C-alpha cells in the first residue's frame, strides 16, 4: 500500500545498481565475510561470563581474616540506606574486638535492586557486591538469604576489595586529608 508523495526525490541509482545482480552479489559477499568475522556472542551457559571487578552482583558479607565470623559490626547503616529496604539485622555483642556483630542478617534478594549503596556506606568493607549474577530460586523463602548464605571468605571477593581500595576508599581518604589540612 503506497502513499503517493510527488515532492519526494527518489534515490538515484546508477546503471550498475539498476541491473541488480551485482548488488545481490555484493550482499552475498558481505554475508560471506561475516562468517569469518570474530564472534561477538558466546555460548552461555557452556561458556561462563566472568565479570570485571567493577561489576555489581549479589551483595555478600565478608568473613573476617581470622575466620572468626563476619566483619560486620551491625551498625545498621546499610539497612538504613537500602532503597527497597531489603536488609534486616539484629545486633548483639560479641567477645571479639569488634564488640558487636549481627545475630541475624538477612537480605531479601527479591527486593534487592543491586544499587550498591550498602557497599558504599559500609565503614568496615563488610558488605560488598560479588560477581554472582545468575541467582535463581525455587521459592520465595529461599530468596531471603540469611547469614550462612551471605557469608563468603575475603579471598573470594578479593577482586572487589582491591577495586574498592584502589578506586574509591583510598582516593576518598586522601581527599579527606587534603580537606582537613586546608582550613
Amino acid at each position, binding site marked *: 500500500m503506497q502513499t503517493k508523495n510527488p515532492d*519526494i526525490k527518489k534515490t538515484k541509482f546508477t546503471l550498475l545498481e539498476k541491473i541488480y545482480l551485482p548488488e545481490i552479489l555484493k550482499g552475498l559477499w558481505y554475508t560471506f565475510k561475516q562468517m569469518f568475522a570474530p564472534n561477538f556472542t558466546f555460548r552461555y551457559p557452556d561458556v561462563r561470563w566472568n565479570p570485571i571487578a*567493577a561489576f555489581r552482583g549479589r551483595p555478600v558479607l565478608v568473613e573476617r581474616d581470622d575466620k572468626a565470623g563476619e566483619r560486620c559490626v551491625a551498625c545498621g547503616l546499610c539497612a538504613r*540506606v537500602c*532503597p527497597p529496604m531489603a536488609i534486616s539485622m539484629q545486633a548483639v555483642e560479641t567477645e571479639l574486638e569488634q564488640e558487636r556483630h549481627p545475630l541475624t542478617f538477612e537480605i531479601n534478594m527479591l527486593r534487592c*535492586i*543491586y*544499587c550498591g549503596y550498602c557497599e558504599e556506606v559500609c565503614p568496615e568493607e563488610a558488605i560488598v557486591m560479588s560477581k554472582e549474577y545468575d541467582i535463581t530460586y525455587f521459592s520465595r523463602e529461599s530468596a531471603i538469604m540469611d547469614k550462612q548464605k551471605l557469608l563468603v571468605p575475603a579471598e573470594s571477593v578479593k577482586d572487589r576489595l582491591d577495586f574498592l581500595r584502589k578506586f574509591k576508599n583510598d582516593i576518598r581518604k586522601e581527599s579527606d586529608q587534603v580537606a582537613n589540612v586546608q582550613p
Partner: protein
Amino acid sequence: MPELILEKPLAELLPVPSGALVEKQLKTEEMVLNMGPQHPSTHGVLRVELLTDGEVVSKATPYLGYLHRCFEKHAEALDYPMIIPYTDRMDYIASMNNDLAFCLAVEKLMKLEVPRRTEFMRVIVVELNRIASHLVAIGTYGLDIGAFTPLLFTFRDREHILSLLEWLCGARMLYNYIWVGGTSHDFPPKFKERVGEFVRYFKPKADEIYRLLTNNEIFIQRTRGIGVLPADVAINYGCSGPMLRGSGVKWDLRRDDPYSVYPELEFDVVVPTADECVIGDCLARHIVRAKEIYESLKIIEQCLDKMPEVENFDPQAAVPKRVKPPKGDVYGRAENPRGELGFYIISEGNTKPFRVKARSSCFVNLSTLPELAKGQLISDVVAIIGSIDIVLGEIDR
C-alpha cells in the same frame, strides 16, 4: 456479506488520510481489536484498543498502567539519593539521562556547584547512553517493520557501549552512576582512550546502520507518509525530542535551555529535510534518531578533548553528606533520547521530598497516538507506535 462495487481500485481508495472516503464507500461493521499488552510491537506492556473498520483503524485508544510501580509515591518515602536507583528504572534504556535530569533538579534546588570534570564526565556518559538508546530504537523499529538484520547490527554496537558503562560503574543498564553533586566513580584509567577508540570504531558503523534502513526501499514504503504529525499538532500535544524535531521544529533542551556544559559544545539540532521524507512522518522521526547519533559522537569527541585532568580526582567530593534541600520547589529538566524529562520536586526542608512529579517524554509523545493512528491501516499502527519510540517503564512509572 454484500458484494462491494468499487469505483476505483482498492489501492487508490485506501491511503486517504482521514479515512472519510473509505468510510463512505466501504463501511463494514466495526470491530474492537485489542493490540497488546503482549503484542511484540508495543514495546512492553502497552494495550491499544483499536476500533477497526475492515483494515482501517477508526479509533485507537492506548491503555496504560501495566507497569505502574508507584515511582512518585515511593519517592515521597525515600531520601533524595535513594530515589536515583528508582529513576534508573523509569526509562531503562537510557538510565543515565534519567539520573542526570533528577540530579539537575535537586542540584538546582540546593544551588550546588558541580566540579567541572564531573560535568564533562556526565555529558560523556549521557551521550554514550543516548547513542545506545537510539540504537535500540532503530533496531527495534526495523524489527517492527519486518527487517531483522538492523537489530543485530545495532545490538552489536550497543554492546560496546554497555561494556564501557559496565566498566565504569558496574552495571549494564541500571547504572546509579550520576549522583547529586557528583558521580559514583571516577573514570577508570584508560577509559577516555577507550571511549575515543569506540568513537573512531563506531563512525563507519553508524554510516552502515544509517544506510541499512534509510535507503531500504521496503522500509521507505512502509514509513514514508505514514503517521504524519504536523508541527502545530505536535506543539499542542506537548511533544518533545525526536518526535517534535521530526515534525520540523528545531527544539532541543541541550540548546534551548542549556544545562551542564552543553553551551560550550558545538552540535546541530537535527531536523529532517523535505527531500528525504514527508516532514512529520514515521520516516522523518527515524531519520532524526539516526542522525542524532552523529551529533552525540561529535559531542563526545569534544568532551574528551576539553575534559580537564585532575590528579587523584574524587568524584564524590561535592556530594553532600546529607542531601537536604531548603524549602521550596523546583522544576529541573533535561533532554532525554525520547524528549524532555522533567522532575518537579517540592521540598519541605527535609531529607525526603514532599512530592516528586515526573514529566515523562514518552507519556506525552504517546498521547498523540489516537491522532496519528486515525484512518491508518492496522499494520501502519505498528509502524507508528514504533516510531514514537516508547519505553513503558517511563510511561507508567
